């Protein structure tokens, strides 16, 4: 594999890793909030979180591109805080990926928290454990598999992203040029041999990751009662 493609691989992995960490940090409290929420506004928040599942990525990318431009408030704030332009930067594609992959992390976590219910948390409280203590000693160990599933799906989905990145990241080698964009470039240039290498690598990589997630979920299905 020639070095521009290796560079694209590095950018892709870095983007997916950073995105996954942020997604877990944001997605966990959001999923917890949704799982415990009883208000009728719950469905509205759920719909917003699920929106990237159905929305064409170019729509999300288009609005983000506008928001990130120095003419608009989010872009301006970013530029003032960091001194750099947000659009067409690595940070931009990470923010875009976080929004785009959010449902893949929030939904499995929310489902796990709902299934766990309140009964064991009440038992924890009766043993003197506070809310944070209960989260780390009861919720986290019992929903570990869902966390791994959520992180893997978030990671895999981010690796496979194309539309959003094309809109807000452009195609800057070493910064925003990820594998899916590199693949697109090879096809545009009729370099099918290189395109094949990237396509088959992405296919096999994604397949291995998903298979691992399903294997990981097997023992949990057996022991949960």
């Amino acid at each position, binding site marked *: 594999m020639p070095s521009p493609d290796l560079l694209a691989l590095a950018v892709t992995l870095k983007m997916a890793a950073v995105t996954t960490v942020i997604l877990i940090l944001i997605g966990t409290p959001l999923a917890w909030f949704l799982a415990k929420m009883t208000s009728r506004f719950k469905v509205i928040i759920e719909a917003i979180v699920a929106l990237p599942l159905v929305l064409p990525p170019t729509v999300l990318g288009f609005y983000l591109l506008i928001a990130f431009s120095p003419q608009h408030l989010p872009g301006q704030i970013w530029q003032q805080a960091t001194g750099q332009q947000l659009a067409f930067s690595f940070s931009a594609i990470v923010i875009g990926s976080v929004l785009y992959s959010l449902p893949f992390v929030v939904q499995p976590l929310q489902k796990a928290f709902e299934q766990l219910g309140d009964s064991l948390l009440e038992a*924890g409280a*009766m043993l003197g454990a*506070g809310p944070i203590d209960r989260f780390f000693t009861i919720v986290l160990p019992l929903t570990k598999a869902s966390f791994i599933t959520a992180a893997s799906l978030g990671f895999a989905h981010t690796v496979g992203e194309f539309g959003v990145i094309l809109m807000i990241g452009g195609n800057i080698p070493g910064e925003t040029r990820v594998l899916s964009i590199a693949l697109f470039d090879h096809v545009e240039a009729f370099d099918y041999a290189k395109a094949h290498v990237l396509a088959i690598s992405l296919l096999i990589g994604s397949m291995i990751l998903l298979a691992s997630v399903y294997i990981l979920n097997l023992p949990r299905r057996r022991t949960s009662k």
Partner: protein
Amino acid sequence: MTILSLDFSLNYKTFTFTINQELDLTGITGVFGHSGSGKSTLLRAIAGLEKNITGSIIFNEKTLTNTTKNTCQKPEHRNISLVFQDSRLFEHLTVRDNLKYAAKRCVNSQLSLTDILILTELDMLADANVFDLSSGQKQRVALARAILTEPKLLLLDEPLSALDQASKAKLLCLIVKVQQLLNLPILYVSHSLDELQQVCDNLLILSQGEVINYGNIHHTIHQLNFLSAHLPNERLTHQQTSLSLPIASADNGQGLTVLTLAEQNILLPSLAGKFIKNQHLRCFILASDISICLSEPQNSTIVNHLSGNIVAIESSMLGVPTQSVLVTVICSGHEFFVHISTFSQRKLALYTDQPVYLQFKAGAVRTYLY
């Protein structure tokens, strides 16, 4: 003395619970009522798990909840532990780690985990996974875990309901032992009066979200005989005589245990288990299992004959024409309740203050534990 002052109400769409009662929690206090009477709601409110209550809960002069002052102590800070009907053990931990979970969070821990494992007979199972345990073993772990938080008050919510008869008796004995060893006040919720009769010192009776009686266990059960008459739609239990009598002899050589009732004796089939002389035995006799004779019965296979005086004769169902009456007889200072037909009452021409003999078979004297 351990005092729990309850003055609160709780509203759900189809259910309202109201209580204004001070409980002396010395020993074991039973909470009895049908499903939907508010028993579990009461325990959950005391534990701090019910969010929507209005009023106050004060335990030993410490305010747990007072909605007018906007105070509500968090459940984890109340120093009260609750054993749930469904155990609620942590399946990702072993038996020992479940117990450690409680011990680690106990401030000023005094009890040794090993001692509690032995007390609850879990020492052989300490390293077992909790999902491999039977229901009875699970409840013992739940009880041990609750004890290790070293609570000021232990709440038990139907702890025996999922168990078979043998496990029930075993766990009941353990609960009594724990109460005595640790001198721990216990509030014990059950829909089985037989269970409560065996272990409780006091009894609180709930019906449709309200307190209908509270007091000494035997006295309250006897009051229930009349309450059943007043509330024909609320028949809570079988009318019965509840007793706690010293054992004169665990086995009289004829396969019978002898209990002392002042100068008289009550015989029952010999019990399995070791008893010391004068140890008190809890037992009950259903009102329908006792009959009345005007003269001392001779030549009868029925072994128990007690002499006494009738103190009251009441229709067994007030306001409803019935074919039966509930007769209260005092024998050696103890109240006995006898359920007979109005036909028999007329035949013997029974009246109050009349001296009579009660007779019942040894097998009619029931205990739940042994």
